[in-house]
């Protein structure tokens, strides 16, 4: 049984903070497919279209029949732990720093192959396990085996916390707490065991709905933060930068309108200011500090979360210019993901459809309740996902985008005609 994770001690005054030593990263180009699925929580392996064999590890041709017709296919997660061992020594700095480390061989159900996985401490040798694919601290896809049924303190297993970004005992910055989304995010983080939530509040001179209730939440602290003001962002980094373990960017500027039904660039600039330049300023000020703390104990820096409209993927003409700024934000998140690679900090994109807020008033349901997006973000952190969709619209658009972006673009253009 895993012991409950205790709140981490305060930092030692003279010891050097641990630096990130990423686990082995090299993968074949084919292996990156496995990683890309794993990052969004999908466990897929290649299945041979010719003979039906499941390839493991990823291969360019089928080891059984030499066909190159291998298709990435969802794999049932059930399996049995047929062999396990505890590493007590390793030449890889990452594992040396974290020994002992449990690994095992799992025979997947049915005609599935035997795979190698990190194994949870509570999984019993010879017993059934649940296997899932996720990205590790170097951002590469790995397999992990959980016990057949949830156990007490299961999420606290040290190897599991290496691939999740669990908010428990971590300190969270919610960049814009003025909105219902910001408030919902703060509450969800606290319920997930966050040690503290910093509430980013811009323009304190302007009151906002729910201010009193928000400020009365326990373990919270107002963090003056105007993402449009470089000095404000720098001051925030100077005051709490080394205490932000998870950053959740909830700031959004959403307005209807496209280029030809607006008269100026004022709103478009505000969209870019909040949706793109704001996160960019945060990345410049806070990113390097978080990147340096990716292995800093049980409350290491773990995640940089962007709440993105799913129309970042493909433009929704009725909100054409907000979509354009969201596309910029998505591109920035890709840049950030590359910069954080190997640091132990995951960049998490939470795609959502229209939120059920004042800017989506005329839109028909389904709309995403702020509480739903908040719980999906916290869920993604607990699971260690890098891409997550919140709500039916986001899931639908995301799937259609994966299937064929060019078709989706034209479909969305037609919705504009219908509007």
């Amino acid at each position, binding site marked *: 049984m895993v012991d409950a994770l205790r709140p981490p001690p305060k930092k030692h005054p003279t010891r050097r903070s641990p630096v990130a030593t990423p686990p082995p990263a090299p993968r074949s180009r084919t292996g990156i497919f496995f990683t890309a699925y794993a990052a969004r929580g999908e466990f897929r392996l290649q299945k041979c279209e010719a003979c039906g064999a499941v390839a493991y590890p990823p291969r360019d041709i089928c080891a059984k029949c030499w066909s190159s017709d291998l298709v990435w296919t969802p794999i049932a997660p059930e399996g049995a732990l047929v062999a396990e061992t505890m590493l007590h020594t390793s030449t890889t700095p990452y594992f040396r720093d974290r020994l002992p480390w449990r690994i095992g061989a799992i025979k997947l159900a049915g005609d599935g192959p035997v795979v190698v996985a990190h194994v949870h401490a509570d999984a019993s040798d010879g017993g059934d396990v649940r296997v899932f694919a996720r990205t590790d601290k170097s951002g590469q896809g790995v397999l992990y085996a959980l016990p057949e049924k949830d156990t007490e303190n299961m999420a606290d297993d040290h190897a599991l916390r290496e691939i999740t970004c669990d908010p428990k005992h971590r300190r969270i910055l919610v960049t814009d707490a003025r909105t219902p989304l910001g408030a919902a995010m703060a509450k969800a983080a606290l319920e997930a065991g966050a040690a503290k939530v910093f509430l980013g509040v811009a*323009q*304190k*001179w*302007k*009151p906002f709905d729910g201010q009193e209730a928000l400020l009365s939440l326990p373990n919270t602290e107002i963090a003056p933060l*105007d993402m*449009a*003001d*470089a*000095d*404000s962002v720098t001051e925030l980094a100077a005051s709490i930068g080394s205490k932000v373990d998870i950053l959740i960017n909830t700031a959004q500027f959403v307005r209807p309108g496209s280029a030809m039904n607006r008269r*100026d660039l*004022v*709103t478009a600039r*505000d969209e870019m200011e909040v949706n793109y330049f704001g996160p960019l300023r945060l990345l410049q000020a806070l990113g390097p500090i978080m990147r340096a703390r990716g292995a800093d104990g049980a409350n290491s820096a773990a995640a940089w979360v962007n709440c993105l409209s799913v129309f970042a993927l493909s433009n929704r003409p009725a909100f054409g210019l907000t979509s354009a700024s969201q596309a910029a934000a998505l591109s920035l998140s890709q840049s950030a993901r590359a910069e954080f690679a190997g640091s132990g900090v995951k960049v998490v994109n939470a795609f959502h459809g229209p939120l059920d807020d*004042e800017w989506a008033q005329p839109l028909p349901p389904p709309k995403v309740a702020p509480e739903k997006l908040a719980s999906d973000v916290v869920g993604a952190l607990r699971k260690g996902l890098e891409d997550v969709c919140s709500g039916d619209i986001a899931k639908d658009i995301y799937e259609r985008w994966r299937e064929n972006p060019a078709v989706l673009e034209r479909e969305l253009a037609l919705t504009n005609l219908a509007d």
Partner: protein
Amino acid sequence: MSLLKDLGEAVTSGSVKIVDLSHTLDPDFPVLVLPPEFGQCQPFRIEEVSRYDERGPAWYWRNFSCNEHTGTHFDAPVHWVTGKDLPNSSVDTIDPSGFVRSACVMDFSKEAAGDADFVLTAEHIKSWETQHGEIAAGSWALFRTDWSKRTHAEYLNLKEDGAHSPGPDAGAIRYLIETRNVVGFGVETIGTDAGQGGHFDPPYPAHTLLHGAGRYGLQCLRNLDQLPPVGAVVIATPLKIKAGSGSPLRVVAMVEE
């Protein structure tokens, strides 16, 4: 021209004191708030270009951006629809003689302290004049409320039903324009109109009437408590922005010690 020579010497010697009536242009200084579906007044924003570093080894400079009505600012007649057809009514074309004028300072800080919605009327102005004399034609009428001593949320004083800050009614403004022929009206609050001025008749009487009559506004002033009721000279030179509706500016006053 011994007058200006004497003035120059008086300023240098300190017998004429220069009082700064401006707030610092600070990104966190409140701006006028409108319902979010309207275009908004942009707060002051700064981006560093270089600071003695690889971006510019020996020099420090920054880009800034803001609205024409951010911080301590000047309102030109063209700012309001009532002044849109007046000749020479934008900051680049108005007569620069209006930029340097004597000022009277009407102190209603006690009234404003007791009532955030204090409304300045013609009667108030007339009673002030019984003490300090008639407001001179062509001068600035400055309305002291000590509102500039408030900060953050207390400055805008936004409630569910809008902002609450002192301002004039139509009668006061008409009196200043028609009877006293002032060059403009200056305040410590975020606008020349009261926080609730949108509910007055006509709405926003200061903006509507002043600018319709080609007069100016000065907003977000401070240190009015350092000026005498009469006798100060205000220097308020807006930036020469092409067709500008107003401009942030450094306002100073000359005061005889």
